[in-house]
């Protein structure tokens, strides 16, 4: 394909030809590396951050199951500490941990652990603020109906905050995408590394700009998809008049089934 592009634009500059050839050959893999490392890190960050965020809300003094105040204070300090260390520094600090868990500190696998560690407290705060947005009256109603704490979390807090949680997920994904690009500077893979190492350092402007433009496009796509999904699952406002067709209704019920959380306890 590189030949085709070169001949189509009748580019004669040999440096340009080299860059375009390189781009066409490497960019699909760089995109893939960026996407999968971002996705895995986002999921891992939620695996830690989601329960932590829930705990920060439910365990607070005004929460459904207040935990001892000192414990909550320690938790808050840890989250704040991790969030206040600049990502580049944190990444270097976490390298030993990465070696223990994944056996490597370089390449795309090498940045998964630092990304997760850096993003988890951020995700925890996002989840916390999403859950706090919720109307307290709903929790009170659930308590009055005899819900256990676990049922309140599973059946009230999470489903009712789903639109907001999806927005948070999008924000986290995009932030981690940015972190991942930064990780290119210390030996990660993906588009960030391509822009830094092959673009900037080797003065290949076409490579640099292309990598950046692709990153921008990716962010746009994920933000749109995230916002759209968040609005789509939200039953509170902007209810579109639902078509009465059976197919549409089936879709609806299937989606509902998919969304309803497993039985608590």
């Amino acid at each position, binding site marked *: 394909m590189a030949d085709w592009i070169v001949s189509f634009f009748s580019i004669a500059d040999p440096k340009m030809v080299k860059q375009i050839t390189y781009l066409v050959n490497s960019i699909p893999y760089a995109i893939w590396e960026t996407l999968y490392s971002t996705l895995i890190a986002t999921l891992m960050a939620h695996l830690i951050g989601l329960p932590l965020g829930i705990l920060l809300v439910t365990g607070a003094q005004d929460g459904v199951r207040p935990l001892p105040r000192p414990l909550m204070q320690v938790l808050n300090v840890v989250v704040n500490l991790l969030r206040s260390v600049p990502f580049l520094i944190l990444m270097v600090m976490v390298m030993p941990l990465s070696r223990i868990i994944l056996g490597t500190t370089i390449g795309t696998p090498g940045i998964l652990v630092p990304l997760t560690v850096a993003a988890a407290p951020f995700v925890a705060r996002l989840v916390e603020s999403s859950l706090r947005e919720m*109307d307290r009256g709903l929790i009170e109603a659930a308590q009055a*109906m005899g819900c256990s704490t676990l049922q309140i979390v599973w059946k009230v807090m999470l489903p009712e905050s*789903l*639109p907001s949680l999806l927005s948070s997920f999008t924000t986290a994904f995009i932030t981690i995408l940015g972190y991942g690009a930064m990780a290119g500077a210390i030996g990660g893979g993906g588009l960030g590394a391509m822009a830094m190492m092959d673009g900037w350092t080797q003065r290949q402007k076409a490579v640099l700009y292309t990598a950046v433009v692709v990153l921008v496009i990716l962010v746009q796509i994920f933000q749109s998809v995230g916002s759209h999904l968040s609005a789509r699952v939200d*039953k*509170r406002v902007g209810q579109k008049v639902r078509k009465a067709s059976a197919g549409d209704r089936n879709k609806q019920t299937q989606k*509902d089934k998919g969304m309803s959380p497993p*039985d608590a306890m």
Partner: protein
Amino acid sequence: MIELKNVSKVFPTAEGQLRALADVSLTIGDGEVYGIVGMSGAGKSTLVRCINLLERPTSGQVVIDGADLCAMSRKELIAQRRSISMIFQQFNLLMQRTCLKNICFPMEIARVKRPEAEKRARELLEVVGLPDKADAYPAQLSGGQKQRIAIARALASDPKILLCDEATSALDPKTTRDILRLVKDINRRLGITVVVITHEMAVVEEICTHVAILDHGRVMETGTVEQVFSNPQTEAGRRLVYPDGVRIDELPTANVIRIAFNGGSSYEPLIASLAIDCGVKVNILGADTRNVNGQAFGTMLLGLPGDRLEAEKAITYIKNQPNVTMEEVRDYHG
């Protein structure tokens, strides 16, 4: 039977301790519709939340059918709460669930099988008169419809007690009456004890059998609605029954009627036309009326002239007015 024994609740605040309830004792019999009235800030909401221990009293006992809730373990309390339902001013429906799923919710947490729960939920939708709203989301409903769904949800766990926390305060007068009628009907048909928290005396008048007047965290008086309304014993009671501050000993002793406006033309022409058409002058002793878009709602106390013939003329005239109901107030002076 619900017994509150010397219940006190103190909230710590920045300015020191706030005593929301002070030594409240109440007995609410089975099947009663018990109104708890008071001005805002009187502690009504705190009091009703003590009945299902959403608020834990600082001291005192909450005894339901002989069992002290304060002494229960977390598990026992959860089980007990499933027999006490609650509806709220803000409805508190789950916005991401359909109405049917909202009604299923209490059964879901009590692990009732889904088909069984849905069948019961559909029955309850019939009871509250919204059988076609099963698949609608709460955001698509009006306030009155939301409260109906909330009532259906409250009934889903077959409760013994229904707590209504300002359940009609966010609704318009007509919807309020409809909802109150539904609650009354449920009380009659299912024998559920209802506790109604409200600041509106009209609500108490409409459905309650008994009433307690709460002021500054204290129960000022209790009794049947007739007793308390016709003859409030305390200053707080009089303030609520006659909000415009009529001094009871300044009122005439006989021929007092209470008329209620149910949304006709404004009340001033009625009194004026009474004077013009019948030549009868009446004395407005007290009024609690609101003019909503040119329509009058509320009640008014009128003192009729001592002359019997003239009084009867006035009564006949008022009786013939559309949108006005009238009753004589006996023993007005006590």
